[in-house]
C-alpha cells in the first residue's frame, strides 16, 4: 500500500470518527447515511460483482430487524406477551440487558439472514435475468405480508423496542458507531474479497455463467456463499436499524420494498456498478439528494426521486465510477491502446456481458 493511500485511509478514518462530534445536529442523518452505504455495498456484491440483480435484498433488512428485536426481547421476557402489550405494559430493560440484547441481537440477525439466504438462494438462483429480480421481489413482498399477519411478532402493529438507556444524544452516537464499525469492517472485507480467487470467480459468473461453469467453477456454491455474506451484513445493519428506529412495523419500515429496497439499487447505479467505491459514493450522493429534496421540495420529493431513478437508469447507467473510467482511464491504472478500435474495458461493457 502506497503512502498516499495509507494517508487517504487514515484521513477518512479520522473523519468517520470525528464527524458525529463535529456535526452533532446531523446525528440521525449520519447514521442513516451509513445504513445506505452498507446496503449499497452489499447489493453490489451480488448485483454488480456477480451480475444477479436482486430486488429482494430488503428481505434481509426486514428480517434482520425482526430477528434482532426478537432476540433482545426473548433474552428477558416472553415474546408473545411483550408484543401483545404493543409497547404498553411494564417491560423495563436494565442497561446490561439492553447492551447484551443489542450485541447478540444484531449478530444473531446477521447469522439468521445468512442462513435464510442459503435457503432462498437455493430456490431463486436457478432463475435468470428479470425472473430473478421479480422472484426475489416476490419473496420480500410475501415476507412482509406474512409478518404483518403474524400476531406473535406484533402483526401489523410491529414491535416497540426499549429506548437507549441514558442520554438521547449519546444514543445517537452509539448507533452511529455501530453502523460505522459494521460499514468499515464490510469495506475492509470486500477490499480483500474482490482481490482473491473468490472475487475472480464471482466476476466470471457475471461475465458468462455457462462458461464459468464449464471452466469448473461450482457456480451455485459461489452464488449462495456470496449472497449469504451480503445477507449477513444487511441483517446486521437491519438489526442496528431496529434499535435506531425503536418502534417499527412490517410493511412501511421493515420490509419497505419500494423505498429502501429500490434505493439501494439506485445508489449502486448512481455510483457505478461493480466497483468498490461506486456504491459508497452513490450512497452519499443519493442520501444528500434525498435529504435536500425532503427538506426543500416537500410534497414533490417523491417526484424528484422518481425522476432521479429514471435519469440514472436511462441516461447514466455506468454511474460516476464508470463515467470516470471511460474519461480518465489512467486514474484506474488502465492503459489505453490507441491503435485498437475497441473502447477501453469499462464497467459498463462488463455489465453488459452479464445479460
Amino acid at each position, binding site marked *: 500500500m502506497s503512502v498516499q493511500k495509507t494517508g487517504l485511509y487514515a484521513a477518512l478514518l479520522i473523519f468517520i470518527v470525528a464527524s458525529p462530534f463535529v456535526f452533532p445536529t446531523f446525528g440521525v442523518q449520519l447514521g442513516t447515511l451509513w445504513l445506505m452505504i452498507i446496503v449499497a455495498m452489499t447489493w453490489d456484491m451480488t448485483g454488480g460483482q456477480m451480475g444477479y440483480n436482486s430486488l429482494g435484498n430488503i428481505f434481509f433488512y426486514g428480517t434482520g430487524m425482526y430477528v434482532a428485536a426478537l432476540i433482545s426481547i426473548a433474552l428477558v421476557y416472553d415474546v408473545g406477551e411483550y408484543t401483545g402489550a404493543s409497547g404498553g405494559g411494564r417491560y423495563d430493560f436494565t442497561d446490561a440487558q439492553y447492551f447484551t440484547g443489542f450485541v447478540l441481537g444484531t449478530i444473531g440477525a446477521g447469522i439468521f439472514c445468512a442462513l435464510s439466504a442459503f435457503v432462498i438462494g437455493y430456490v431463486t438462483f436457478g432463475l435468470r435475468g428479470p425472473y430473478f429480480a421479480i422472484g426475489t421481489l*416476490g419473496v420480500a413482498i410475501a415476507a412482509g405480508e406474512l409478518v404483518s399477519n403474524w400476531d406473535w411478532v406484533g402483526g401489523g402493529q410491529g414491535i416497540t423496542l426499549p429506548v437507549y438507556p441514558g442520554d438521547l444524544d449519546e444514543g445517537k452516537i452509539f448507533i452511529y458507531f455501530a453502523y460505522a464499525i459494521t460499514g468499515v469492517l464490510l469495506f475492509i472485507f470486500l477490499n480483500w474479497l474482490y482481490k482473491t480467487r473468490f472475487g475472480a470467480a464471482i466476476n466470471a459468473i457475471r461475465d458468462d455463467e455457462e462458461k464459468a461453469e464449464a471452466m469448473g467453477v461450482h457456480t451455485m456454491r459461489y452464488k449462495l456463499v456470496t449472497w449469504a455474506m451480503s445477507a449477513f451484513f444487511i441483517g446486521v445493519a437491519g438489526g442496528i436499524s431496529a434499535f435506531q428506529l425503536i418502534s417499527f412495523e412490517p410493511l412501511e419500515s421493515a420490509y419497505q420494498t419500494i423505498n429502501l429496497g429500490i434505493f439501494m439499487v439506485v445508489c449502486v447505479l448512481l455510483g457505478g456498478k461493480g466497483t468498490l467505491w461506486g456504491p459508497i459514493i452513490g450512497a452519499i450522493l443519493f442520501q444528500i439528494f434525498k435529504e435536500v429534496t425532503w427538506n426543500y421540495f416537500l410534497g414533490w420529493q417523491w417526484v424528484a426521486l422518481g425522476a432521479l431513478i429514471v435519469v440514472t*437508469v436511462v441516461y447514466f447507467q455506468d454511474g460516476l465510477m464508470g463515467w470516470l473510467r471511460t474519461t480518465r482511464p489512467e486514474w484506474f491504472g488502465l492503459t489505453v491502446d490507441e491503435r485498437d478500435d475497441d473502447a477501453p474495458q469499462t464497467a459498463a461493457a462488463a455489465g453488459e456481458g452479464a445479460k
Partner: protein
Amino acid sequence: MDQIASNIGLLIDYPVVNLKIIIDGVMIGALFALAAYGLALVWGVMNVKNLAQGDFVIGGGYVSWWLVKNVGLHPLLGVPAAFVVMALLGGALHGTPVHQWARSQKKPMIIVSLVTGFVFIVATYLGDSAGSIAGYAGMVLTILLIINGGIYNLVISRVIERDLFTSLLATFGLAIMGAQIMNLLFGSDTQSLDLGYDTLYFADGLIDIPIAKLIGVIMAAALATVVIIFMKRSRMGQAIRATAQDARAARVLGIDTEKVYAFTFSLNAAICGAAGAIIVMVWVIQPFYGITYSVRAFVIVTAAGLGNLPGVIAAGLGIGAAEQYGSHVFGIGYQQAIAVMLLLAVLVFRLMQQKRNRQVLQ
C-alpha cells in the same frame, strides 16, 4: 387454525359459497387480465418490463373520475374517455403528422396552454364552472400535445431492447413519479363512482351480483375481444406481431418498428386506462394502489408466458379466483401474499421443468 378449518368446512357444507367465490374471483380476474395483457404486449414486442402498469390503471381511473365529477360525463362513457386520454399520454401520436405539427408549433402551443391555464384560474376564482372546465380542458389538451409521447420519447424509447433490468427500474421510477403526481393532483383519499344500479340476488341471497360489476366485466370482455380481433386482422396488429417475432426481419420487410413500438406502448396504456375506468366504477382507486395491479400483472404474465393470450386470460381469471379462495380461508389480510406466493410457486415450478430438460444433456 380453528378459524381456517371452519372456513374450509363452510365451503364443503355450502357448495353454493364456492360459486359465489368463483364469480367474485372471475370478476376481479377479468380486470387483472386486461392489465396483464397490456404487459404481455409491451414485454413481448418491446422487451420492456413495465412496472408502471398499475399506475396507468389508476391514472385511467382518475381520468374517468375527474371527467364524471367535473364535466358531468356518464360513468360508462368514462371508459372510452380514459382509453383515449391514456393512449395520448402513452404516445399514441408519436411520429404521426399531428405530432410533427405540434412539435413545429411549440411556441404558440405553450402560449395557448398558458392562456387557457390563466382562464382556468380566473374562472375558478370567479366561480364560473363552464369557463373553468373549458380552460382546464384546453390547458390539459395543449400540454398533452406538447409533451405528447413525452414519457415515451424520454424514457420508454430508450429502454427498448436494452438490459432487462434497465426497463424494470426505469419504469419503477416512472411509477413512483406517477403515483405521487396523482396524489398531489387528486389527494390521497380513496375514490369511486356510484352507478346507482341494483344488485341481483341468486340462491336465496347467498350470491349477490351488483349490475355495475356485471357491466364492468362485460366491458372488459368486449375490450379484450376488440383488441384480439385488432391484433389478428388489422395491418397494425400484423405489424406488431411481426415485430414481436423478429424486430430485425420486420424492419427489413419495411415495417416502421419505431412507430410499432410507440403504438404498442400507447395501446398498452390505453388498455390499462380503460381497465382503471372500469375499476373506479366497481371498486375504489387511490393514488398508491397501482403497485398491487403491477404485481398482479407480473404474476399473470410470468405464469402464462408471453404471446399466449388465452393463457393470460385464463391465468388472470384463475388468480382472481385463487385470491378470493385464499382470502376466504386464511383471512382478507393474506390476499396480496397469496398472489405473490402463487408467483413464486409458478417460478419454482418452471425452474423444476427446466431442470428436467437440462438433465437430459448431462
